[in-house]
């Protein structure tokens, strides 16, 4: 599984950022994400899942499985 390797940047005032593991683009959060949160990279539109919060590490979100849903 591809993971972003660069650490995030989370100063008190700056936007929270992480690195897209697919395109190395910058992924921004407007507040601290939770583990399991899914975001979309605005540059390569990959669906990414937060797998660690400190530091923020993103990995490509798994494909939809047969038993997923509501």
């Amino acid at each position, binding site marked *: 599984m591809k993971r972003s390797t660069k650490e995030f940047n989370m100063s008190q005032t700056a936007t929270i950022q992480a690195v897209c593991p697919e395109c190395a683009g910058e992924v921004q959060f407007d507040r601290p*994400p*939770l*583990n*399991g*949160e*899914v975001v979309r990279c605005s540059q390569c539109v990959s669906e990414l*899942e*937060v797998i660690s919060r400190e530091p923020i590490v993103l990995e490509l979100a798994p494909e*939809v*499985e*047969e*038993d*997923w*849903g*509501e």
Partner: protein
Amino acid sequence: MRIAMTYTRIRPEERFLLDEFARQGIDITPVDIRQQVFNPADSSSWDSYDAVFDRSMSLTNSITSLSILEGFGLRCINSLKAVELCSDKLFTSIALSRAGIATPEVRVATTYQSGLDAIDEIGYPAVLKPIVGSWGRLVSRVNDRHAAEAILEHRETLGSVQQKVMYVQEFIDKPDRDLRVFVVGGEPIAAIARSSEHWVTNTARGATAEGVELTDELCDISRQAAQVTGADVVAVDLLECPRRGLLVNEMNHSMEFRNSMDVTGVNIASVVVEHIAEIAQNQGRHDSMNHSQGVVVV
């Protein structure tokens, strides 16, 4: 009062709910089921919770965790029984039929040949669905016998074991929309219409949502359907049949509502959280009237 919210992925809904728990000052702990090691004989790490709110996107994880947590005597929302009933289209059909609630005609078969017979009996076009699945995945409109043969052959050859069950539903020639009613604590709180030019009117497939009036007729049938499932929080999907009126199509135990709050003007997350807190307060583990002895057979 302490509540655990189990999940497998933080969708916008889980964010709305967590924010709402925080806003209402309720002690909520998000628990990623995927990180858990459960010991069915030891409830100690769960004893401090009054109730568990299941928001798993994975049905398998829901059923696994709820089996164990209800075994610990925890009040789970929704209950294992409700989740099993809502998640399985066949179980839902059986329950609705037994309760006399209007629902599309269904035939069920387990082989290629009996599947063809079932589709013939329902008539063309028919709708073939997996008994477990969501977001309109693998739902097929079968227009004629040739299509039926092709789809059933593919399912027999390529499908999982579960897909060997042929769940065949009559096609309802509805307007280009279906209806969804959100029911919390047995009471309808909001309704939307999901519209699409595609015959699958699911927002996960690009349908758009708009708020609709909660009419008496909508409320009555949705209330009855929710009661049949025993679900505390559920979304009831309905079809408008030109001949028979409202039909309950499916039930959703872990409902998504990200597109529904703005269009209905109802803060669904807030209503749900209030209800979860009420259950935890009145029926939770630390309520002296309930579950004080721990193990409950499920």
